[in-house]
């Protein structure tokens, strides 16, 4: 039979049992739709993680105090990571060229008669370098995509120097908006302000900044800032030294594991880290590199893929059994028809093609409906996953292909059975 004749025959016979065909398809529809929706969830989660860690460069190591579950809540354990340690790390590891450190706290700031509660940040002298590299903010009116240099972030005056950080000099730099708010039109440069009980000289004001991410632009204002040398902030505003989150920069991204090992050695000695009975170190700090995150992501992606493969195979089996069941019923019901076809010259392969095509048509239409339903279900899946579900384009051919394969695999047996019928017995079948 020509393919056109076969298609016509298959359509007609499915049409004659439209409800049965639709119910049979349902298994495939649900299977395909759920695979697409699940893959979208995984994809969305991955995209969210990607966005979070995009700023972590290949040569950077995040270092933080370790947290562990104690008395039912996560608490930092062991020694704090101190400012001094951050400085010493550079000495201890020749591969580390700088360590970004920052602490933040709200501080009451006074200038003349006006006063403000400001979130102050203690930074190292390289803060602007880090800001430029990060690329999440830029001066207002900055040409999109143009390279950022540290000095473009300075509006007036200057940023503090490394010596001033080491010395804990009482100097500070204001954000654009904060300067306007506090100084009311006076020139801030050179002015003396009070941070609680400490005198501080203003040496600079940042340029007016805006977020490069349009969605972020109205959510946080980068112009509300007060930046001090980290040493100054710690010495004057903390009674007890805070634990500092650090980002160490290696001079060579290829030797980042070496750099990590050097920092580990330094911190283990400094914190007098013990070993347990299996000789494993009981570290009280944690280090993360981009490679670590990517590794975790790949692991997570792997687990997710395994889960999906399991789901796909369940839907394949369920949908396939449905198809096989209906096709077997159909072959039995149409035994006489098969006999007639054989009598007028149909060969075994004509009968196989006819029934196989019906099964594939069932699974293909089910697959198609499933793709549509799956895409429509993505927003629903997103609400269950805090808004992160993103259609994975590959999931459409993947799930549709699985559906087709199901039709072929589970349609084959009924089709073979039909083709092997004895013509005389088939013609006599009541």
């Amino acid at each position, binding site marked *: 039979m020509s393919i056109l004749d076969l298609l016509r025959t298959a359509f*007609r016979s499915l049409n004659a049992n439209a409800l049965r065909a639709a119910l049979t398809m349902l298994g495939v529809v649900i299977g395909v739709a759920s695979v697409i929706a699940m893959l979208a969830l995984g994809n969305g989660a991955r995209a969210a993680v990607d966005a979070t860690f995009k700023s972590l460069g290949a040569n950077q190591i995040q270092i933080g105090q370790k947290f562990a579950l104690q008395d039912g809540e996560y608490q930092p354990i062991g020694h704090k990571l101190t400012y001094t340690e951050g400085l010493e790390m550079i000495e201890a590891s020749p591969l580390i060229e700088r360590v970004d450190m920052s602490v933040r706290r709200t501080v009451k700031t006074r200038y003349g008669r006006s006063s403000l509660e400001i979130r102050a940040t203690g930074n190292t002298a390289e803060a602007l370098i880090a800001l430029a590299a990060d690329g999440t903010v830029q001066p207002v009116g900055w040409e999109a995509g143009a390279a950022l240099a540290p000095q473009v972030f300075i509006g007036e005056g200057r940023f503090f120097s490394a010596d001033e950080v080491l010395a804990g000099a009482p100097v500070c730099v204001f954000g654009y908006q904060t300067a306007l708010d506090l100084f009311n039109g006076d020139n801030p440069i050179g002015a003396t302000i009070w941070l609680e009980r400490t005198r501080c000289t203003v040496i600079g004001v940042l340029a007016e900044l805006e977020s490069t991410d349009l969605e972020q632009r109205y959510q946080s204002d980068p112009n509300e800032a007060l930046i001090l040398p980290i040493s100054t902030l710690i010495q004057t505003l903390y009674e007890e030294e805070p634990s500092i989150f650090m980002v160490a920069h290696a001079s060579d991204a290829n030797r980042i594991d070496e750099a990590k090992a050097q920092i580990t050695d330094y911190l283990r000695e400094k914190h007098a880290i013990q070993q347990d009975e299996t000789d494993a170190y009981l570290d009280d700090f944690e280090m993360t590199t981009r490679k670590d995150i990517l590794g975790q992501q790949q692991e997570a992606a792997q687990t997710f893929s395994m889960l999906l493969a399991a789901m796909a195979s369940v839907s394949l089996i369920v949908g396939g059994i449905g198809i096989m069941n209906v096709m077997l019923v159909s072959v039995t019901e149409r035994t006489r028809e098969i006999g007639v076809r*054989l009598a007028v*010259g*149909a*060969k*075994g392969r004509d009968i196989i093609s006819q029934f196989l095509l019906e099964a594939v048509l069932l699974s293909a239409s089910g697959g198609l409906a499933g793709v549509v339903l799956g895409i429509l279900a993505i927003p629903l899946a997103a609400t269950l996953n805090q808004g992160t579900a993103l259609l994975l384009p590959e999931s459409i051919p993947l799930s549709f292909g699985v559906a087709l394969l199901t039709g072929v695999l589970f349609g084959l047996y009924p089709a073979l059975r039909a083709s092997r019928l004895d013509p005389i017995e088939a*013609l006599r079948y009541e």
Partner: protein
Amino acid sequence: MTVIRTEALTRTYQMGDTTVHALRAANLVVERGDFVALMGASGSGKSTLLSLLGLLDRPTSGSYWLEDVEVSTLGRNRLAELRGERIGFIFQNFNLLARIAAWENVALPLAYRGGTVGHGAQKKMAMESLARVGLAERAGHRPTELSGGQRQRVAIARALVTRPVVILADEPTGNLDSATGVEIMNLLHELHAEGVTIVMVTHDPVLARHATRVCAMRDGILSEA
């Protein structure tokens, strides 16, 4: 010209421990233009012989030439091809497909010619065949919308559409009332007059009168009257 020749054609079935001899060493020759009636009581083996002649079944032993081809040892696919090309069947219960129109039923044997007959040609040939049995105006109707006699005419049109060398009819009037049965027999008579070779199984001696030759079957043994 000889259309059918069998030599010691034998068919036995195994029913548990006993061997049933449905057909015993039948020798039959059908020439072109013959109208052969196969008579016999039910269980006499006439349907077995017709199935063998129609290539729906294979003999246990013996030889069968359909025109120039010895068919008793051919494979399933080759048999299917020969059925489609050289044989037309008319069944007692019509055996039409209920879901498709009359003309599509008639065209069915053409559709199984490996795609060599296009859709348009199939329809044209089917319509010609339907016209020949006087049913052209009912071509678009489904079998369920036709009377018994009309259905059998459709079946005859289907048997004719491939211009087979022989038409095998198995009790063609068995499911029809007597008036309609006469119409169908007249139609077969006309076709025979036009040169069509027919082998018909019947147990009705009245119908056998239409035939040019009558063969009797009894306990699996064929004898010409």
